[in-house]
């Protein structure tokens, strides 16, 4: 038998593998970069291994947390996965579950995004773990992330607490060669033991639970398997580098490459909180100077306490914002070692191409119609591909999931109080509407707010890789219809239209505006599938052609901004990039002189 070959695994797939290998039975998540691939990978491993599990895309992170937590209360191993801002949404059950504790191992994966590459904030989930008073593990590579998924279950069951696993983008979206290990079937059955004093504890008993949690934490700070690891033997040095997460991986490589490997003792912290007490003592007594490298906040640094000798984010030695890139770490290590700083690499020119909606994306047509119908409107928007409507001037605000609706109501009230009526057109994606849009819609109706809400319904969660939305239902359940929810919230005007039919859609928005000006909230559901959603069959349509009548006014490129329409300096006209034009045909209605046509014509 040939030896098994390792397979290429993305960090997210590796964590998923670790969970499944270690007997995870229930997993629930809401997608968000960089955590989106975790749940799909869990489901893929489940299928491949024939494991008996419940794996679900929940409607939001709070619900995902609660589903998985109940499985843990029933004695099964369970996990929930989300991005860092998703953890904000799930923070309510997290804080409480920390006090109540767990039965079956319970892992909360919260993926951070230093940079940030694809997030609203650079927040450090380890600070949330600290606030909740639960231990957090910080993997430095996909392989380690897989290990730590198992370790997290073990830690959780040993101490009866939820355990956070906190990867960052560079771990989630790194790939590495990893060997598969067998999947354990722990043969457990759900067994929820009633104990209302604990599971439904009143404030008085919560105090006792808090005291107990503090005691548990001090025991976890002495737990062997998660203790910091000394990676080198540098006898006689009074300098130490303490690193965690991918910063440890960068630092290790950079220190070896620049001949600094023996210049200091090198520790990798696996569990940044609670930091092991013996380690804190060792650092205090054995070293005169300490450099802490971690992302994104100074979590380890603040637990080392001795600020005079510890350099890090709080001391100002390490940048407090942005990603710690290996080239930054190289300079920090040199400075710490008292070596000359390596040359700063020539700064790359600003990234050339900004992200934009796909050619033929229905959202582009929706934004164009909204601008036409309400040119002086305020446009609150939300989180998703359509945030890119900002390029088109169709997005004025982006705050957090669901805020488009709350803000639209807020803008209405602000302008109403001061007596200046304004058109307000909010946009929100279908998945985001389900996630956090329903309570603010109810609020708007109850308070008599007046605005137009356009629900951009492309039947998928596009930005994060086309995860399903509740309107598709699941094999075991049933589909939930957006229009019925809207009606159920008490909205009296709700229409559905296809934005790719630009004239009719624009007329629909105008009608909704008229309703909203004197009656209340009006909803238009912009229904058209996402172009990259492979689960939908896309009819092949003829590409656009710009004919000689093009005046070169560039209206289409500046106001509609389809990336397939390119101004050609040589001819002074716009040309169609046939590599990417999807043939949606919307630009035919955008061109003011009707110079764009479609081979075969548009019906």
């Amino acid at each position: 038998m040939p030896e098994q070959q390792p397979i290429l695994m993305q960090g997210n797939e590796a964590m998923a593998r670790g969970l499944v290998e270690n007997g995870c039975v229930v997993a629930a998540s809401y997608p968000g970069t960089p955590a989106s691939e975790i749940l799909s990978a869990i489901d893929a491993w489940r299928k491949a291994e024939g494991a008996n599990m419940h794996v679900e895309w929940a409607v939001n992170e709070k619900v995902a947390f609660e589903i998985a937590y109940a499985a843990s209360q029933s004695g099964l191993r369970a996990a929930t996965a989300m991005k860092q801002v998703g953890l904000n949404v799930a923070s309510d059950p997290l804080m409480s579950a920390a006090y109540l504790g767990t039965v079956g191992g319970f892992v909360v994966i919260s993926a951070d995004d230093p940079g940030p590459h694809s997030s609203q904030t650079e927040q450090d989930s380890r600070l949330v773990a600290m606030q909740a008073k639960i231990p957090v593990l910080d993997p430095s590579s996909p392989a380690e992330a897989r290990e730590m998924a198992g370790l997290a279950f073990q830690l959780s069951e040993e101490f009866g607490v939820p355990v956070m696993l906190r990867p960052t983008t560079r771990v989630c979206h790194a790939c590495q060669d990893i060997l598969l290990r067998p999947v354990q079937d722990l043969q457990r059955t759900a067994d929820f033991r009633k104990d209302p004093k604990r599971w439904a504890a009143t404030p008085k008993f919560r105090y006792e639970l808090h005291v107990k949690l503090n005691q548990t934490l001090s025991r976890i700070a002495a737990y062997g398997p998660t203790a910091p690891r000394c990676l080198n033997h540098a006898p006689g040095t009074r300098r130490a580098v303490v690193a965690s997460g991918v910063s440890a991986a960068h630092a290790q490589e950079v220190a070896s490459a620049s001949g600094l490997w023996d210049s200091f003792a090198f520790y990798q912290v696996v569990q940044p909180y609670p930091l092991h007490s013996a380690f804190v003592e060792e650092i205090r007594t054995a070293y005169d100077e300490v450099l802490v490298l971690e992302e994104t906040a100074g979590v380890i640094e603040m637990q080392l306490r001795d600020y005079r000798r510890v350099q890090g984010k709080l001391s100002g030695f390490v940048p407090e914002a942005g990603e710690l890139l290996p080239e930054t770490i190289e300079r920090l290590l040199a400075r710490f070692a008292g070596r000359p700083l390596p040359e700063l690499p020539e700064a790359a020119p600003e990234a050339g191409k900004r992200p934009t909606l796909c050619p033929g994306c229905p959202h582009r047509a929706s934004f164009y119609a909204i601008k036409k119908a309400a040119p002086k409107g305020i446009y609150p928007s939300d989180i998703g591909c359509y945030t890119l409507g900002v390029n088109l001037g169709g997005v004025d605000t982006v705050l957090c999931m669901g805020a488009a609706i709350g803000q639209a109501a807020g803008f209405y009230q602000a302008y109403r109080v001061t007596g200046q009526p304004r058109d307000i057109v909010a946009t929100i994606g279908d998945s985001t509407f389900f996630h956090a849009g329903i309570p603010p819609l109810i609020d708007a109706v109850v308070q008599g707010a007046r605005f137009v809400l356009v629900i951009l319904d492309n039947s998928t969660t596009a930005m994060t890789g086309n995860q399903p939305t509740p309107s598709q239902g699941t094999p075991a359940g049933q589909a939930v219809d957006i229009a019925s929810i809207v009606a159920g919230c008490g909205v009296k005007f709700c229409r559905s239209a296809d934005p790719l039919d630009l004239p009719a859609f624009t007329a629909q928005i105008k009608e909704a505006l008229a309703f909203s000006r004197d009656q209340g909230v009006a909803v238009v559901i912009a229904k058209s599938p996402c172009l990259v959603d492979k689960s939908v069959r896309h009819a092949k349509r003829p590409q656009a052609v710009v004919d000689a009548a093009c005046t070169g006014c560039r209206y289409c490129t500046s106001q509609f901004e389809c990336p397939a329409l390119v101004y050609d300096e040589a001819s002074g006209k716009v040309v169609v990039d046939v590599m990417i034009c999807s043939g949606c045909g919307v630009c035919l209605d955008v061109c003011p002189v009707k110079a764009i046509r479609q081979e075969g014509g548009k019906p």
Partner: protein
Amino acid sequence: MISQQLIISGVGGQGILFITRLLAETAIAKELPVLTSETHGMAQRGGIVISHLKVGAFSSPLVRPGQADGLIALKPGNVKLHNSFLKPDGWITANAVEPFPRAGVVTIDADTLALQLGNPQAVNLIVLGRALSMGRFFCTKDELANVLRRKLHDKPAVLEGALAALAAGAGAA
């Protein structure tokens, strides 16, 4: 042990992830350790997408500026954007119509070739084929083609298109 650091860049939708993983899987087939770093999220919507690929004994998934052996650019503009990653003697293979006024840059008009093949999605493999034909990779074109065959064995039509693209790129030398 072989040690190679590569940067693969382009814009969202060009299939950067696909060729990065293909190269990484070829490394594994050759029993070499591999680390990559991918771009996901908003940048995938037509923004700048960059992959780092490190074959050999590395612990960090990122290539530092000045350390890359080679750069594969699927858009001409990405050469300027990402050549600071290269070592002084690093090579570049770029998808471009015009040749580059710079030593060490091999260009190929992959857009035109892809349209000729009737496969606009194949720009990535055409440029990769061209880069592999230079013989400076940790793997050969045939080794990579074998991995491709294994990966796409249940999609014969896609496989055929992919192999044709690879060959077209290599043949354009």
